[in-house]
């Protein structure tokens, strides 16, 4: 697969050059790897007793429990965030001005803050306001609030991306505002939004690791406990990274496929939202495939 923009099919000379460059680059990569391995073994980081505890079933179970906690928080937060985000998106498109302003305020306020700040606030602040909850819920509330503001933008962009003619046609056959939304606009918009939503789910899943600062026992927290116990922080945390990469790669692949399909079917553009950095990126893969 060569890049579409930059090169025609290569001629014999260029092919030769690429072959030389490939060998050179390949050797360079191998050399880097060798240096890295050497370095690891010099410092005793490749010794099996650093890895062995991590492959024992009780420790793996400890990690898997952490992964379950991570998925649990991410799933609950995603559901709440979608619901709140949907309401906010509709409110921002509403004809009633105060509704619009309130929703805009909500979205712009929470979208502009780091999730970390929201988590700290929920954890240290909500108890003082009388909300006495489990750590899990402080994390879920912060995740939901933050992601609902981003999903609201995705939803709004999705709805706005539809041709005006769709809603005009709906009105002209006698549908009211909500009927037009519910029967014509939203069903079409949702299709366009699905890849963006899945991408946001990946981001949310990664963000769940911020539960580490409030000692919610998710994957990263458990990796740190393990690393402190066996004195192998590099290995323990790298192990957690493998879990994250496995789960996220699957979700990312789903997002890419959905987007590529949608692009093929409808020729529809992606939903591009500032603040949702992952969303902007899936375009690359899609373009490459189409």
């Amino acid at each position, binding site marked *: 697969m060569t890049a579409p923009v*930059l090169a025609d099919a290569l001629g014999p000379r260029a092919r030769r050059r690429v072959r030389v460059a490939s060998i050179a*680059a390949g050797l360079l990569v191998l050399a880097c790897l060798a240096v890295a391995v050497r370095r690891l073994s010099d410092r005793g980081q490749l010794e099996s007793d650093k890895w062995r505890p991590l492959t024992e079933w009780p420790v793996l179970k400890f990690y898997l429990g952490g992964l379950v906690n991570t998925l649990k928080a991410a799933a609950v937060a995603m559901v709440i965030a979608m619901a709140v985000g949907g309401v906010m998106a509709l409110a921002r498109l509403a004809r009633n001005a105060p509704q619009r302003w309130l929703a805009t305020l909500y979205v712009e306020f929470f979208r502009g803050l780091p999730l970390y700040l929201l988590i700290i606030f929920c954890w240290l*602040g909500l108890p003082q306001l009388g909300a006495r909850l489990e750590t899990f819920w402080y994390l879920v509330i912060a995740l939901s609030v933050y992601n609902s503001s981003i999903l609201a933008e995705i939803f709004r962009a999705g709805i706005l991306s539809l041709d005006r003619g769709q809603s005009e046609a709906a009105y002209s056959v006698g549908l009211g505002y909500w009927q037009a939304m519910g029967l014509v606009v939203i069903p079409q918009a949702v299709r366009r939004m699905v890849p963006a939503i899945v991408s946001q789910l990946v981001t949310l899943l990664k963000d769940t690791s911020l539960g580490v600062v409030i000692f919610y026992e998710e994957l990263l927290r458990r990796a740190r406990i393990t690393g402190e116990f066996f004195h192998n922080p590099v290995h323990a945390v790298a192990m957690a990274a493998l879990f994250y990469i496995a789960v996220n790669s699957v979700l990312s692949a789903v997002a890419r496929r959905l987007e590529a399909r949608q692009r093929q079917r409808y020729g529809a553009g992606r939903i591009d939202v500032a603040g949702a950095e992952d969303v902007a*990126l899936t375009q690359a893969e899609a373009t490459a495939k189409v």
Partner: protein
Amino acid sequence: MNVVFDNLDVFVAGMRTTVSLTLVSFAAAFVIGVVVAAFRVSPVPPLRAVGAFYVGTVRNTPLALLMVLFFFGFPDVGIQFDSFWVSAVIVLSAYTGAFVGETVRAGINAVSRGQGEAARALGLTFPQTLRVVVLPQALRTVAAPLGSIFIALIKNSALAALISVHELVGNTEDLITDFAQPIPIFLGAAVGYLILTLPSGLMVNVIERRVAIKR
């Protein structure tokens, strides 16, 4: 609210660190991103593989994990920076670089085929084509997504608090535990962040309108 005004210096010091982290990391991430993008579109397979591996790994790993791994783990393999700030910048730019790389690559792919063909017809070499014809156009199309990445970076820089860099969130947490008045202190910090993120958002819009190529 007094607690906010009494500690205004703490907030301002935090904001200053947040800004320095963001600006330096973004500059570094941009360089990393362009290199990664060049790798990923290059005709040389090993370079493409390296680029893909880097992006796939970094994008699917939480920033908090990378921060902890680099700061507490990497010294055991001999990679250590004594300044906490520098450590944070390295992690933030490595992480953000993967996103910049993907965005720039998308921009390159969005440049129409004819541009590259025309450049080659004029006899430009591959690096020349990339540098003179394709990248300038690509960077203009990606101005808006890069703006989003910049804003995300302002927010992500908060994770430097995990490694005791005294930026805005870290200082806020310390103030809350010291004064036990979470609400005013939270609002103070929120204003601090909005002062940084909202104007950045507006600026991104302006730049987008200025440089966007209408097709």
